[in-house]
């Protein structure tokens, strides 16, 4: 830790910045003033071979400033945990973690804050959405990477990207006012419920999963494809037996990220779920999830109720962290195996 710049230059594997290395190695160490002793003995010292102390300090200062900026991301995660935790952790102390996580009744007016049914509802909504959305998205990714002609690809890929850009509240509006009446007509109820949430969330996870899966499929070397075709395999055999297995780590990552998006989605689910704090008796019955309970009850919550809602937010935060950690773990395992 004596000389950040020099360390930065030397420890870089390979020679990505040879010129920079030269400059840094010849920079005078802090405390040494005057021209550097590393000036080539033959010939007069040139400006290229040394940098002034002022430049050196400026460069080192800037580097640390950039590092500070990069650490804002770390600070952000810590702050989220601290402040949401500061508001929410008291509920764990008051009720006990087991009662909070294991309680099946969420009834703020009766003072019981069991989130188990909310967790189950969130999982039901997410898994159902993935069951529809993941095949759709992976199929689209395969289409983009290996099936479509370049011209068709140039039409479909922007569509997938635009799908990612549409605000969730617009998805919710579409679900509430376009999809729900159709479901209501076919099922005979109001149309609020898991079925509507599954369809909306399925569309919402498609762009996330498709984009990352496509990257994974593209990063499979073409030589592998050619080898498969050379053995007489058809396109589908190549996709099913060669490409998908080769890209599976990336595809699993994509599905986990899609799962994170679905479980954290609030507005779209809120608008189609109908919002009842019980495990629904059917897929056309209203339900409440971890995210929607917060939006719905925050405006009037106070005291323990409010603390419990922050407790729910802690749960969501920890779930999303767990997803990110598991993606890391999977890609590390995948790298070790190959």
């Amino acid at each position, binding site marked *: 830790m004596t000389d950040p710049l020099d360390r930065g230059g030397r420890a870089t594997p390979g020679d990505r910045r040879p*010129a920079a290395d030269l400059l840094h190695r010849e920079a005078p160490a802090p405390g040494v003033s005057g021209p550097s002793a590393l000036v080539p003995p033959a010939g007069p010292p040139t400006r290229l071979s040394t940098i002034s102390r002022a430049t050196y300090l400026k460069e080192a200062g800037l580097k640390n400033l950039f590092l500070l*900026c990069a650490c804002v991301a770390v600070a952000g995660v810590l702050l989220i945990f601290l402040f949401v935790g500061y508001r929410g952790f008291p509920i764990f102390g008051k009720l006990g973690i087991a009662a909070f996580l294991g309680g099946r009744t969420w009834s703020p007016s009766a003072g019981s804050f069991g989130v188990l049914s909310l967790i189950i509802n969130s999982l039901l909504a997410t898994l159902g959405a993935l069951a529809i959305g993941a095949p759709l998205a992976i*199929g689209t990714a395969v*289409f983009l990477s290996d099936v479509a002609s370049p011209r068709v690809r140039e039409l479909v890929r922007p569509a997938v990207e*635009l799908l990612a850009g549409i*605000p969730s509240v*617009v998805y919710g509006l579409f679900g509430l006012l376009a999809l729900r009446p159709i479901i209501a007509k076919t099922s005979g109820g109001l149309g609020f419920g898991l079925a509507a949430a599954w369809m909306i969330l399925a569309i919402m996870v498609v762009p996330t999963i498709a984009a990352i899966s496509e990257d994974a499929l593209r990063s499979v070397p073409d030589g592998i494809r050619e080898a498969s075709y050379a053995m007489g395999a*058809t396109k589908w055999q190549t996709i099913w037996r060669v490409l998908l297995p080769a890209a599976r780590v990336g595809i699993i990552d994509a599905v986990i990220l899609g799962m994170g998006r679905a479980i954290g989605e609030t507005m779209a689910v809120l608008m189609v779920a109908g919002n009842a704090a019980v495990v629904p008796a059917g897929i056309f019955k209203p339900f409440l999830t971890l*995210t929607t309970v917060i939006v719905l009850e925050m405006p009037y919550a106070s005291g323990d109720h409010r603390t419990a809602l*922050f407790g729910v937010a802690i749960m969501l935060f920890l779930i999303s962290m767990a997803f990110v950690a598991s993606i890391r773990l999977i890609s590390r395992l995948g790298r070790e195996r190959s």
Partner: protein
Amino acid sequence: MSDTGGRSEKTNASASGVPPTRRRELVDKRVTNALALGVIWCFALATVAALGSLLLYVVINGARELANPIEFIFSWPKGVNAEGGIWPTIQSTLYATGLAMIIVTPIAVLAAVYLAEYAVQGRLVSVIRFAADSLASVPSIVMGLFGLALFVEAAGIGFSALSAALALSFLMLPIVMRTTEEAIRSVPKYIRWGSYGLGASKWQTVSRVVLPAALPRILTGLLLATGRAAGETAVVIYTMGTSLNAPISPLEGGRTMPVHVMLMAMEGINLKAAYGTALLLVIMVLAFNLTARYIVRRTRRMQG
């Protein structure tokens, strides 16, 4: 004769020794191929159809309510049902998003410069990357409650454009960081070598050579992140509030367009306003996205 018989016997034996192969060959592989590719086509078409129907629905319903766009955009909502225009929601959205963009840009770009140009692979860098990934996957509702707890309550800023912008900048940070880092890494190394060869220091190289070269792609990332922030509901509802107000000072609250859409649709009192606002919101977000795509395409053409 006996030779051929022996060979065919052998073939039969090996085929029956591996029954799955033989059974699969009963269905011609070309038939399977055609069917499977057909299914893949259907999946892709379904994705496009989902986007198409969503856009069509919003455009048709929104356009019907947006018969007089100037009045709808520039006048204030009136009465309990918020009829009339939606100007304060537009101003709130632009204010909070613009402020968030101003806050996040220098931090995210410099953080990306550190990761792409200065950082040495090690524990610190992997912690930073893990944090950025985590930040990107924090559900927006959690980000909203975080903004409420930290900026609105603990810092005492109250429901305001500034609180919303600060919370939104945490949402945008990982997106801008990632795209900027990719942009910087895609600048060819020989351009840097040329700069170093002329005696430029590291910061001179980064600020005068690398960043300008990466600028189009940095802008793209910034626009995508801004589009994302403009459409965000759960974060702003807890940091900016829901009052109809056109903020002038950053300490004033307001109701952004997504929040307006949600309230109008959920309460069902004024679906017209919900449709009209949703259409404007979609146009705004798509404009961000399409501009970003255009910038990428143009630079790609210019760079050959």
